[in-house]
């Protein structure tokens, strides 16, 4: 596990240096989407479905607007990740538009979609489906949709994302290195959660069974 994570990171570093770090070029001059795709698939998986072991998120089927905002936010330093910030720095507006539209059109797996009506026995399910309102933490599904399916251009899918990715994001919000959410809607929630809750709710969404049924 450790070795595979390191080798993936190594690959990313290599790609970072060769493709983007020294001479950022518009996509077209690098061979278009296919060249960028090579770079992306190295970490996000062949079908861009993410790599759970490494905590690299799924991009396939995500909202193009949401993904584009993340790339701009990496550029602007409102979201922190050394590799992604470097990749994003080399992308033109046109690149970002092309690549995010491409990702959005890719098929994504379907997961179960429990909503607030579902039973919630463990800690992760309780946070997802009931919230922790005594601390003003709404149910995750109240914005991210049933099963965290994702809603519109603002609320990304949580279902099937690697637990490590979800936990990393909550940690980044806690630390203030991710601060690209509208009106601090997510930041204040992350800051209200303890470590056990972060792990539990991340595991909950990562572990939702496949299938579109409620």
């Amino acid at each position: 596990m450790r070795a595979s994570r390191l080798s993936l990171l190594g690959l990313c570093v290599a790609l970072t240096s060769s493709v983007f770090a020294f001479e950022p070029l518009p996509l077209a001059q690098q061979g278009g989407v296919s060249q960028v795709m090579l770079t992306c698939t190295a970490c996000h998986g062949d079908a861009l479905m993410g790599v759970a072991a490494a905590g690299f998120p799924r991009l396939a089927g995500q909202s193009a607007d949401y993904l584009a905002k993340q790339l701009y936010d990496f550029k602007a330093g409102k979201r922190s990740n050394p590799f992604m910030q470097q990749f994003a720095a080399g992308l033109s507006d046109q690149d970002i538009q092309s690549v995010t539209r491409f990702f959005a059109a890719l098929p994504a797996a379907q997961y179960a979609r429990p909503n607030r009506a579902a039973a919630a026995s463990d800690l992760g399910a309780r946070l997802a489906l009931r919230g922790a309102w005594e601390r003003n933490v709404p149910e995750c599904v109240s914005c991210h949709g049933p099963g965290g399916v994702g809603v519109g251009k603002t609320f990304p899918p949580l279902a099937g994302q690697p637990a490590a990715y979800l936990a990393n994001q909550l940690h980044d919000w806690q630390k203030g290195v991710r601060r690209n959410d509208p009106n601090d809607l997510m930041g204040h929630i992350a800051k209200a959660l303890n470590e056990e809750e972060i792990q539990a709710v991340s595991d909950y969404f990562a572990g939702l069974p496949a299938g579109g049924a409620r």
Partner: protein
Amino acid sequence: MKHLIPFALCLASAATAHAANIAMEDQSQLPAAPAKAEHSEWFQPPHEKDLPNDGFGQLVREGRAIFVDTRNQAGEYVGNGMNCTNCHLDQGRKANSAPLWGAYTMYPAYRKKNDKVNSFAERIQGCFQFSMNGTAPAVDSHIINAITAYSYWLATGAPVGKALPGRLYPVVQEPAGGYDLARGEQVYQQQCAVCHGDNGEGQKAGKDYVLPPLWGKDSYNWGAGMHRINTAAGFIRHNMPLGKGGTLSDADAWHVAAYMNSHERPQDPRLIDGSIEKTRDKYHADDGVNLYGKVVNGVMLGQGVD
């Protein structure tokens, strides 16, 4: 009891809007909540995990499910995109968000406007007709029984007939210069549109609304309590943006409540003879601060949308 059932069926089957169909005409409010003593807790409803595994526990669970997923679980009585919990946050448990534990113990209650004593069941019927823009399930239906059982359970240990702190939405003082629709639009675009959409249309995942529509055909109708600007201001001030209640000023809560309620929505089902003016004079003239039948930007509100 038996002879009431055909009567209720008649009410439900006479589909078109007519005042005689309305099980509960009055949307005015009962006594306001007293202030909470300093350092004291809000009333604490019981925990879901403590529900017994018997017939009662089962009915309470079903009531909870209807309350949070109304469109799917009681769809034939819902005429819009709302769920009960959209206006009663935290499954009807949250103080200052019209919690069910604050309502259950205050019924039956006499209301002078319709000159009768309303049962709690009739009060829930009112929610279905106005806030849900639908039709009222019969008083002895499973849906009303289940929601009543859920409310009763949430009120476990609450004193009967005593207004508790945290019930209803708190009263928020109207700004000295009155509300300002232009400022309300600003607040809306900055704070609300990210979830509810640029035009109050809400947002869906598949066929289900996740973030509720605030005006238009899938929102609450002109007879719902939330159509009053004063009521909406109280809700917004203490509960919106979701998870960040208490962050808007009193004045901004009023401005944005007025902006929200200056848009068209489904007709008041009590509409009299097709006349907005008659309906306004009978039901809206003495019902808090509202814009039904008022002219805004040259257009009279209260036309309704289908």
